[in-house]
């Protein structure tokens, strides 16, 4: 079983990447100027030396750096991300409580973008015309407009002007529409550009002519033959973007006042809540490693030429 071995190697490599990310984060934080005790107790309060020593012992900060590092790595390896200085909750539970919201937003945005890009390239690849020009202009506009600005525009018109969707987050699907639209417009632009280019190229290939000589309809040719060739870049872009959205929807979450990873990241950084920052760094690294492995598996699924084990 070649594929299983291949997968095992990829997972090992992924683990190495995570270890490197954790070590780097640990090293950077050793140089970080803030005093954890002050963070834990608040900057204003004065702490007695006894209490300070107790807290430091509690968090293991009295140990030599190497021992701290060893404990840190052991902890991480067991999936324990530690305890927040400020919230006195485990970092895992903080991320867990916020991830759902971010995950919903990112998945819906990527799904919507992928669906739109599929449709756009199916309709316009290999065909000059008004629709193609209109879509190309829209794509160019979307990739060159900052997400913040798109969000504000959507809010201005759809919430304030026409009051179709709520301004701030509440429960229910209605509050999701505008943030999802904001993000998916941005993703759609680059995705659609690349997918159409790939499909344009595929439609020029001799195998498309062969398919036409079999009597296939134009739609069947696009659907059965050309589309598959646009999938590789679609997988690359959508998995990468998905990872990016999980980690970095800060702007969108702020504009629409949504809970999520972006918000807690921002809070943790401003409050010097080191364990939470570390936890998020590691979580994001994990997500990217996992998505990369997933993308590799999907490539093989789509393109038989990439299956190394094949004869």
């Amino acid at each position, binding site marked *: 079983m070649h594929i299983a071995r291949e997968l095992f190697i990829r997972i090992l490599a992924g683990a190495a990447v995570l270890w490197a990310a954790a070590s780097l984060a640990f090293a950077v934080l050793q140089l970080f100027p803030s005093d954890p005790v002050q963070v834990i107790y608040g900057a204003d309060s004065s702490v007695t030396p006894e209490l300070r020593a107790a807290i430091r012992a509690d968090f293991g900060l009295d140990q030599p750096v190497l021992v701290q590092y060893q404990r840190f790595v052991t902890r991480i390896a067991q999936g324990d991300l530690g305890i927040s200085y400020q919230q006195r909750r485990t970092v895992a539970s903080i991320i867990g409580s916020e991830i759902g919201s971010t995950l919903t937003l990112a998945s819906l945005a990527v799904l919507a973008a992928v669906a739109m890009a599929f449709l756009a390239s199916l309709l316009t690849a290999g065909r000059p015309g008004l629709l193609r020009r209109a879509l190309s202009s829209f794509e160019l506009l979307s990739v060159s407009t900052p997400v913040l600005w798109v969000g504000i525009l959507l809010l201005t018109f759809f919430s304030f002007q026409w009051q179709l969707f709520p301004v701030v987050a509440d429960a229910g699907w209605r509050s999701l529409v505008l943030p999802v639209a904001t993000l998916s417009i941005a993703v759609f632009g680059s995705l659609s550009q690349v997918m159409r280019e790939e499909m344009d190229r595929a439609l020029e*290939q*001799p*195998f498309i*002519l*062969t*398919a*036409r*000589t*079999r*009597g*296939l*309809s134009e739609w069947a040719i696009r659907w*059965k*033959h050309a589309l*598959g*060739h646009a999938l590789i870049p679609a997988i690359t872009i959508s998995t990468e973007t998905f990872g990016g959205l999980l980690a970095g929807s800060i702007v969108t979450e702020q504009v629409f006042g949504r809970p999520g990873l972006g918000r807690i990241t921002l809070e943790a950084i401003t409050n010097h809540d080191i364990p939470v920052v570390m936890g998020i760094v590691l979580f994001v690294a994990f997500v990217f490693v996992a998505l990369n492995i997933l993308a590799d598996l999907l490539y093989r699924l*789509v*393109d*038989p*030429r990439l299956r190394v084990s*094949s*004869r």
Partner: protein
Amino acid sequence: MSLLTVEDLKVSFPGTDAVRGLSFSVDAGQCVAIVGESGSGKSVTARALVGLAGDNAAVTAKSLRLGEKDLLRLSPSQWRSVRGRDVGFVLQDALVSLDPLKTIGSEIAEALTQHVSLPHVQVRQKVIDLLSSVGIPDPQERIGQFAHQLSGGLRQRALIASAIAASPALLIADEPTTALDVIVQAQVLDLLRDMKAKGTGLILISHDLAVVASLADHIIVLKDGVVVETGTPERIFTDPQADYTRALLAAIPSASTRGKKLALDTSSQALSEPSPRADKPALEATSLIKRLGKRLVVDRVSIELRTGETLGLVGASGSGKTTLARLLLALQSPDEGEVLLKGALWSRLTESERRRLRPRIQLVSQDPLGSFDPRYRVIDIIAEALELAGLPKNAWNARATELMAWVGLSDQHLPRRPRQLSGGQRQRVAIARALAMEPEILICDEPVSALDVSTQAQVLDLLDDLKKKLGLTILFISHDLGVIHHVSDRVLVMHAGRIVEEGPVEEVFANPRDAYTRDLFAAIPRIPEASAFRQHNLSRSNHVGSDIRPISA
């Protein structure tokens, strides 16, 4: 009644007339060959016959009938029911003409189910039957494989199977064997001959008169969209009327063209004898081994390239020719063995030591377009080489002009970019670039394989001239035995990584000792001698098989 009748077919694109009045007819069990060079309109004709000349093409004809159907009046959906069902179409290279993301089984099934409604189980069985009918072994296993997993011959057969899946009465094959080596080419031509014998009408499109010679009942020679000559193979080969046909026939390199110019625009006088040889070999390789995984790509190859000679290296694709060339050029290092340049260390030197010797041995490859930076002008391409050759900058222009003249180009070509040149001109630029380094040895890896036969003739003539003028030593690599026979003094036959035959060209071609070499030579498509036609006509028959779908109105 004829299967297909074409009367005064014209196809034009904005600004050009690709086909200017073509008339012919094809009967069941008959093969009509359309022969011409690139730009002659032969492929456009093929595509127009299935309504796929393109959106910007204007197709007109006095009459264009397929059986009872008037092809000029078909709606798009009627066209779709003609394609694949009444007319099958086979393109050149199955590696790119079959969808690389689909199994060959699903490609063939697609052609089948498009026109015939069958239950799923029967589709699979029919596909298996089709695969075995085109001579693919182990069809049960092959059905789930992809084009890239099959050899060139097998995937071309699979492509043919997909074209005949719905049993069309007419099969159009556009350069069906051009990407194949001679042995496989002969097998595919046999397959087409079988189909013809079963009653399929065949339109065979090729740039190569020798390929169509054995199959065609009628040949149309096309140039710039105009028919220059038409007739039976016997007439065309024994008594060609048009100058162009004569030039085409003369341009085919073979045993009989040795020592003569191929291109007819120069007189075909015999050239002077090859120059005498020096004793020390220009390049010498001993027991070269190169592995790729467990496979031996180059297997204990020892060769000697003698100063002043042209050594031909012939072999099928995948035989290891190109890897051997890379080893000789020291672009790859051998796993075992070594290469000596003029008796001195070559493959064992470090790259920095080798760099000052590199000008002495230069490469001309098959696809110059791929070896040029598309943004460079010809002058930049040449200047780059001149700079590496250490020529002072003020001498570049004069030297570039000289090089251009050597390769039959002029100063006018210097400001052009590769894409603005024809294939032949690009290859001339590639040769000029190689010569700019003042090499002693030229390694030519399939230098004419991508060229039309008349352009090929010019480039071969050019190489021969330059060799004499500059005293070059040439290693000429080709899969084309005719070309090898024409250019080489000595020849090496390579098969599965090994040199299986070696000797003076006449001796090897007249009396091959190795079994593979004999198979190889037997498969060369030949233009038959006049006496062969009488025999050929006797054996020609037109029996019509029963499994061919009649064209419904």
